[in-house]
């Protein structure tokens, strides 16, 4: 223990005078060679030794190991790491070797090594000049609860000026103290209170592991009091979180169903190939990303905005083709339409399978869609947030087209009274084709968003077709607002049922409820007059 403390002190001094230090190549070699092995346990102890050694290159070596850029030469156990330019640097001298080494073996990493790395890097970067790095270091210590960092923590807390970073430091200190058997009772009670204020799952986990076996009665009482406070808060939060999940599932359902709300809801075509339009949109996104990856990688963040209009065009064109070649001969014959579109859907699936292979394709997430926004314990993932906003935007845009454009006016006229519309000089077959193309195109746009959360595979569409019909029928055939409300209420109901009944039973209950509802109100939430009703 004392030895480790002195090592830490040495490390602190070492870090403080890092710039002016000579490189101790011989000593460094001995410590570094411990990493030149295939044994994970040895690598783990090597990391701890390296972190405590104060060798100039240690931070660079550990970072390289974390990014798997570290290798060793089996012949003499020399350690090298790759720098940003892809050149091997000799870790012992922290300089370019006279010639680039060959026959290197990578130093392998597993979860144990990774944990040791996080802890070591955490305690090494507590003094970093960058507040972001200091914060990350504090969080790493919070996880590793490495008692040897306590002295360092106390000194950095005293010096820290940034209140947010200081908060993280204090929480890290509390995490170390709460389970340290030889810490004073006041320190541990204080730590329990501090963790209680932090109030998240991680703090709760720490507080729950305080028991009579490892703490005095007073500490256990303080910990369980703090844990109760956190549990209460988390129970409230989980309701809000469920509502958020429901909203997010609802937005996915809305996206999947909104194209169908046009082709089935408005035109009355039982379009089983709807899911494949969504799939085509997702594959368009994949193709766009592949081209961007190979031709202009810097544009990657723009891949989705570029894919949206293209996906619309691809799916709309395919939709137009299907309407002109198949569906227009089958108007007014719902059963034949069902079979024909189902056949089309199988053909499209197999075509995509032949063109792209049966395997899933990787569609990457742009940087603004990755990560979590933590609102005091309430977690919002950016990807989901964007999808909710996007689905609402698509909904409003579609509503705008139906209400505000002359095409929309004609569409509504044909739907309400086909003969009268034809008599007024509207070319109804053209409007039919355009309406179907619009619905298909919107499904293609949905595919762009769904490629972010689901498999991009030939089966993508099939997993959404049932849910889409459910939403449209439940919301009321022929009404866009009904589709919106139907999607959101189904999403919310699903997510509130899931924690209680489980995913499988929850879905069954929901289907049963919808069947009962449709029995009472066959036309769904909102019933509209239109061609679908007349038939």
């Amino acid at each position, binding site marked *: 223990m004392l030895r480790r403390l002195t090592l830490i002190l040495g490390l602190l001094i070492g870090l403080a005078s890092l710039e002016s230090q000579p490189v101790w190549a011989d000593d460094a070699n001995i410590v570094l060679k411990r990493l030149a092995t295939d044994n*994970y346990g040895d690598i783990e102890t090597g990391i701890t030794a390296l972190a405590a050694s104060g060798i100039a290159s240690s931070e660079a070596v550990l970072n390289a190991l974390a990014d798997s850029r570290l290798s060793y030469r089996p012949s003499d156990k020399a350690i090298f790491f790759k720098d940003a330019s892809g050149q091997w640097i000799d870790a012992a001298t922290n300089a370019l070797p006279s010639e680039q080494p060959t026959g290197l073996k990578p130093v*392998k990493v597993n979860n144990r090594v990774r944990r040791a790395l996080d802890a070591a890097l955490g305690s090494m970067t507590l003094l970093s000049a960058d507040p972001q790095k200091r914060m990350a270091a504090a969080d790493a210590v919070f996880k590793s609860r490495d008692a040897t960092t306590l002295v360092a923590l106390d000194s950095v807390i005293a010096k820290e000026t940034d209140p947010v970073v200081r908060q993280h430091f204090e929480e890290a200190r509390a995490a170390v103290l709460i389970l340290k058997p030889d810490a004073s009772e006041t320190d541990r009670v204080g730590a329990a209170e501090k963790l209680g204020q932090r109030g998240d799952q991680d703090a709760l986990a720490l507080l729950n592991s305080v028991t009579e076996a490892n703490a005095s009665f007073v500490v256990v009482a303080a910990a369980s009091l703090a844990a109760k406070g956190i549990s209460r808060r988390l129970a409230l939060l989980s309701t809000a979180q469920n509502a958020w999940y429901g909203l997010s599932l609802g937005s996915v359902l809305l996206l999947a169903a909104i194209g169908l709300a046009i082709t089935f809801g408005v035109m009355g075509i039982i379009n089983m190939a709807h899911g494949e339009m969504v799939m085509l949109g997702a594959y368009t996104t994949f193709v766009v990303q592949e081209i961007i990856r190979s031709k202009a990688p810097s544009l990657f963040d723009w891949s989705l905005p570029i894919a949206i209009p293209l996906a619309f065009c691809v799916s709309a064109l395919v939709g137009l083709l299907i309407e002109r070649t198949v569906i227009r001969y089958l108007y007014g014959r719902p059963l034949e339409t069902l079979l024909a579109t189902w056949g089309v859907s199988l053909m499209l699936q197999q075509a995509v399978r032949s063109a792209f292979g049966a395997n899933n394709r990787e569609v990457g997430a742009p940087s603004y869609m990755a990560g979590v926004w933590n609102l005091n314990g309430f977690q919002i993932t950016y990807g989901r947030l964007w999808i909710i906003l996007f689905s609402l935007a698509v909904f409003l845009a579609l509503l705008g087209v139906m209400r505000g454009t002359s095409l929309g006016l004609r569409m509504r006229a044909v739907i309400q009274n086909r003969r009268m519309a034809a008599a007024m000089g509207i070319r109804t077959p053209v409007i039919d084709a355009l309406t179907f193309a619009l619905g298909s195109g919107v499904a293609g746009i949905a595919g762009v968003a769904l490629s972010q959360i689901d498999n991009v595979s030939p089966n993508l569409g099939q997993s959404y077709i049932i849910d889409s019909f459910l939403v449209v029928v439940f919301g009321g055939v022929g009404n866009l607002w009904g589709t919106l409300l139907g999607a959101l209420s189904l999403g919310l109901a699903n997510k509130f049922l899931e924690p209680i009944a489980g995913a499988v039973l929850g879905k069954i209950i929901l289907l049963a409820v919808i069947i009962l509802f449709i029995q009472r109100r066959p036309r769904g939430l909102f019933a509209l007059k239109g061609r679908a009703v007349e038939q």
Partner: protein
Amino acid sequence: MKKLISKMAVSALVASSLVASIAAKAEDTIKIGILHSLSGTMAISETTLKDTMLYLIDEQNKKGGVLGKKLEAVVVDPASNWPLFAEKARELITKDKVVATFGCWTSVSRKSVLPVFEELNSILFYPVQYEGEESSKNIFYTGAAPNQQAIPAVDYLMENEKVQRWVLAGTDYVYPRTTNKILEAYLKAKGVKPDDIMINYTPFGHSDWQTIVADIKKFGSAGKKTAVVSTINGDANVPFYKELGNQGIKATDIPVVAFSVGEEELAGLDTKPLVGHLAAWNYFESVDTPENKDFIAKWQAYTKNPKRTTNDPMEAHVIGFNMWVKAVEKAGTTDPSKVIDAMIGVSVPNLTGGLSTMMPNHHITKPVLIGEIKADGQFNTVWQTPGTVVANEWSPYLEGSKDLIADWRAPLSCGNFNVKTGKCGGKG
């Protein structure tokens, strides 16, 4: 009457000549059936296995075939439709006269063809890891039984990661349900409290994992080290792993060990957030042996795709096919009933540098490998059994199956022999 007799004679003549011509045709080549879905939901996994078989047959023909005859593949598409599997199997055996069939992926498809293979006394090689609790005279199981995959994985987590709390998450069908039943009994036998086990099932193709992943996170914050044992199947895996990444669950906090996620599934994913999550298999593409390097090079040359991945069920087909070839050469005939007897005891090299042997229970011996996902979508083997493991087709941890054994050697010749009652047939 005379007329009738002559009519019968003519028709008999026609029939016999027909049979003769078919037989003559069948003499030219040895036909091998390939029964893998090429369309529908399972096509994603099974298409590769069809290609593997075509590659293996091609390789064997380059070496001169078997018993001096060329092999010919008969490919049918059961289209992920379970009853169709049985129909296609019957068609392969009776119409195409195949002498052995390689096929099936899901347990339900295997259960569907099993009576057909038993009735017509033909051979099926089944290459996928499965829940056990079965041994048929006509099926050779080249995939892993639970004790060749699930139980070593749990042991690894218990010993090396000191896991005390367990989430058993699976898709709602027979393989996850049986595997989780075995695992639950095993964990309890190891002293894990019922409170420390959470079991969760989801429908096929489940895509919204937000609530369940949040639940796992909550379950994992009880102050004990937690791990997820995943028997989630097929397409549901990608959204599951995406959600884990989204909610920031790292392998260093809550590791997930999967039994149905291989190189193929990871191909559709950005694996950087998943680094360190685990999978248990009997083979990884990254295994560093000369046999494996040679196989990958030839396979990629055959498919003309330098990026084509390999996976565990493919290795199972490689082993199964080589075993069949060896057994046929040993028996000197392709007659299924003789080959079935010749199969037991046959040993062939596997791709991980050892020998796999066909045991009397119609399962093979395999090494068990635990791998961590790397950033490039491959696995880094972090642990491996010292030798190969013999399959327990009947789990010793389940009531009703712990007294059963399978041994297809004469005089026992039984797939479910009860050692307590000393009788063949039926559960306990």
